[in-house]
């Protein structure tokens, strides 16, 4: 009985981790946003009630930012149910996660906490701790003004504790304040009546003032260009070209420092002609980015084959455009660097990764057999798991392969699935014996392939728990933890 319960627990945890890595609550090819959110909410609730300590520990397992925020939110909401020891670990994990989360996500979380009226002592302490340790509070106070103000109020924070001056006047007494000594505050104050000051503000804030001053979009983009972040600059390139903001367009995106998956998404968003034109530049950038991710592991993985899904379902949805294809492309370049001998197998049969398009059927079975034929050390399958030509062929091929053709298991097979299947409440598996893990960014691929050994469903909870606890311990000792 103990064993069954153990195995169920291990499966539950894995299922949740996979889902929390892959799902972003956005629309997918097969399911809409509501279904995704509903399924994820159910999984969160289930984990929280049944395996609270493991639930908190999943924060160290690379779950995506949205789900990390959801975990933190739930933990803070239900602090009463946790023991003192649990609360101590949770507090440190939360502080650690918040420090690594993108700033906008954190403010979003604080706003959600405020709206949900979660205002226990621990929550206030965590918010205070995070706000006091910000490197540039003045900038954030301007950029995220209402969320910042809400968080300060919600945490009962003394504004003077913040390391920036004039905060009190900026947040709560603008009318009476007069001029500010802090330059950004002063620009913000002047932007209310002075068009020139608008361009000294961060882009998102300036956008609102530009509307107020009726500044033309083209002029606005031209002049705000120095304030843009890298992501904003990239995002605005095409619309700038459309409305004729030549200055911004001429300022070609710097591809050399972009992360691998982001770069792959950028490449696939270009038209086929442009990809052809810039083939050398794009390939070099992708390779360099992959090499940066591979680091010391480059060329250590032996013979690797990869089955990469470029079927029509890899086109994602209007909210996650081509996401599965993006992950497959990034994985292709990363595996190329990691392996000594690498064989990519696209489902469409194409051999030009830069020109991939999401088209055609998912006939995984035959492609997997093509990959296994040369008996590589590792076969990686990047696919959403909707094997449909015919249904279940991949499962059968893998089963027969394991039973008859490779009983010693010399070839390891790992399935990475970028899509959470809301109806099935899990990332879709290829076969019961093949490890399947969710993937969000291709950068996590090495860790996920290592983690995949747990995902066969054959390892017990004890082993998994040991792994997770080791992760937690390592994570918490990386730097001096914040006291909560």
């Amino acid at each position, binding site marked *: 009985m103990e064993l069954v319960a153990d195995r169920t627990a291990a499966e539950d945890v894995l299922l949740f981790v996979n889902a929390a890595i892959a799902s972003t609550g956005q629309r997918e090819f097969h399911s809409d946003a509501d279904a995704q959110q509903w399924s994820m909410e159910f999984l969160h609730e289930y984990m929280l009630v049944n395996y609270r300590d493991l639930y908190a520990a999943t924060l160290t397992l690379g779950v995506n930012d949205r789900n990390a925020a959801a975990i933190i939110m739930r933990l803070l909401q239900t602090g009463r149910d946790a023991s003192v020891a649990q609360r101590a670990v949770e507090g440190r994990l939360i502080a650690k996660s918040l420090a690594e989360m993108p700033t906008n996500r954190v403010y979003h979380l604080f706003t959600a906490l405020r709206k949900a009226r979660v205002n226990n002592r621990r929550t206030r302490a965590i918010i205070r701790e995070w706000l006091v340790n910000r490197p540039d509070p003045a900038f954030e106070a301007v950029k995220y003004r209402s969320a910042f103000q809400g968080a300060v109020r919600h945490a009962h924070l003394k504004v003077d504790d913040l390391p920036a001056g004039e905060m009190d006047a900026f947040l709560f007494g603008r009318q009476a304040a007069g001029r500010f000594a802090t330059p950004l505050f002063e620009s913000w104050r002047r932007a209310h009546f002075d068009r020139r000051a608008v361009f000294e503000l961060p882009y998102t804030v300036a956008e609102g003032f530009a509307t107020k001053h009726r500044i033309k979009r083209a002029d606005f983009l031209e002049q705000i260009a120095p304030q843009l972040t890298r992501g904003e600059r990239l995002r605005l390139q095409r619309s700038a070209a459309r409305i004729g903001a030549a200055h911004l367009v001429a300022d070609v995106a710097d591809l050399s420092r972009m992360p691998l998956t982001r770069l792959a998404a950028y490449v696939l968003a270009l038209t086929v002609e442009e990809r052809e034109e810039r083939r050398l530049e794009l390939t070099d950038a992708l390779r360099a980015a992959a090499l940066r991710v591979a680091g010391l592991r480059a060329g250590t993985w032996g013979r690797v084959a990869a089955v990469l899904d470029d079927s029509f379902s890899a086109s994602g949805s209007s909210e996650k455009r081509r996401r599965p294809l993006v992950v497959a492309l990034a994985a292709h370049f990363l595996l190329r660097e990691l392996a000594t001998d690498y064989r990519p197998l696209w489902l469409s049969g194409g051999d030009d990764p830069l020109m991939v398009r999401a088209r*055609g059927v998912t006939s995984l*079975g035959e492609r997997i057999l093509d990959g296994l034929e040369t008996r590589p050390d590792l076969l990686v399958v990047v696919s959403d798991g909707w094997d449909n*030509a*015919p249904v*279940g*062929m991949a499962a059968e091929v893998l*089963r027969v392969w394991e039973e008859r*053709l490779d009983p010693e298991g010399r070839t390891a097979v790992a399935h990475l699935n970028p899509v959470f299947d809301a109806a099935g409440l899990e990332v879709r598996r290829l076969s019961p014996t093949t490890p399947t893990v969710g993937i969000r960014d291709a950068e996590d691929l090495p860790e996920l392939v290592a983690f995949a050994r747990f995902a066969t469903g054959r390892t017990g909870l004890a082993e998994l728990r040991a792994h997770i606890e080791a992760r937690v311990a390592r994570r918490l000792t990386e730097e001096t933890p914040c006291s909560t």
Partner: protein
Amino acid sequence: MQHLTFDGLQTRPGQVWGGIRLVPLVRDEPITSLRLHPNGFSEEPARGYEPRCCYSPHGLVAEWTDDGTAVPALGTALCMPAKTVRKSLRPKTKLERRTRVHFVPHQTALEAFIPLTFKRPAIAWKAWSTRAFRVPPPAQERPYAGYHVEGLADALRIFEIHHGQCGVLLYVADALAAAVVTPHPDDYRALHPTLVEDAFGELIWRYANLHGDVPDSRVHLDASSIDTIADLRAAIDAARREWTDFHDGVMAAGLLDADYVFTAEYQMERYTLQRFRPRFEPGRETHVGEAITADDGRLAYLRTFRLSEAQARRGRLLQALAENDWNLEATAATMGIVVPALAARLHTAGYGHLLRDDHLAHHLAANRKGTR
């Protein structure tokens, strides 16, 4: 009396979404000398008459060449001379041969062509003809647009089109609802989304609403006989063939095994447009539709509509009448019933107005007395 065949078309594994199963048909070699376009209106401005805004709900255009060379894809050719209809008031086209025809929209085709295939009464009764003009046609079951068939829109959206796919068989709750075949893969790609605008019978709509998910037809390989990779490949091929045989022999049997009456309607060089209807045998699937066949027997275009039971019954009745030259006594004799019973059937089928009122009343009364 002929059969429909899928010569030159191969069945590929179907894709299931909820209660809908879509089975793709892939052509070995696409037909290039006949093409279909979703709509060709805008390319044909006629002299003196330039349509500014045309609405052709789901009407297709078939285009072919005289000498068997490839038809250019829509939008890539120079503007072709316009079509003219015989006896039309529009000016005649200068082109000697016409290379384009416009299909009537699906819905209109259903309403107009099904009655046409049955011979009209050979004797022209004046009273009947005036009445036929004055009184609207008998109430028919309303065809349902694909939008209203539960799950069809989603199933079409997520369907992954095969390389070289030229057709699809659409099953609702594993009952064959429609079959579509196009000459060229590009045509299919263009027409695939329009399937949701097609009309479906009440039967199909009901099935879609009432039945749950249909099972995936999962493959199973026998592991015990596989020792090498070549064996495994052979097993995969065998599994594929097994599905094809099962599908063509069992699932599509209702469409492929039935006898059809073909009526040739239009000749376009090597291609013949035909309409077909089944023999209306009780207890069988009844599919009617249009097909274009090449002179070598290949199926270039096919579009079918599945009649519901009530429609099939009506078809049976009309057929019996047409075969007996609309003679009530003879028809009743071939059907093995008495005349009042036949009149009652005509009445319930909505064709009561074909009989004179007093005769109808007399027969109905006799029928009531007889059944009592």
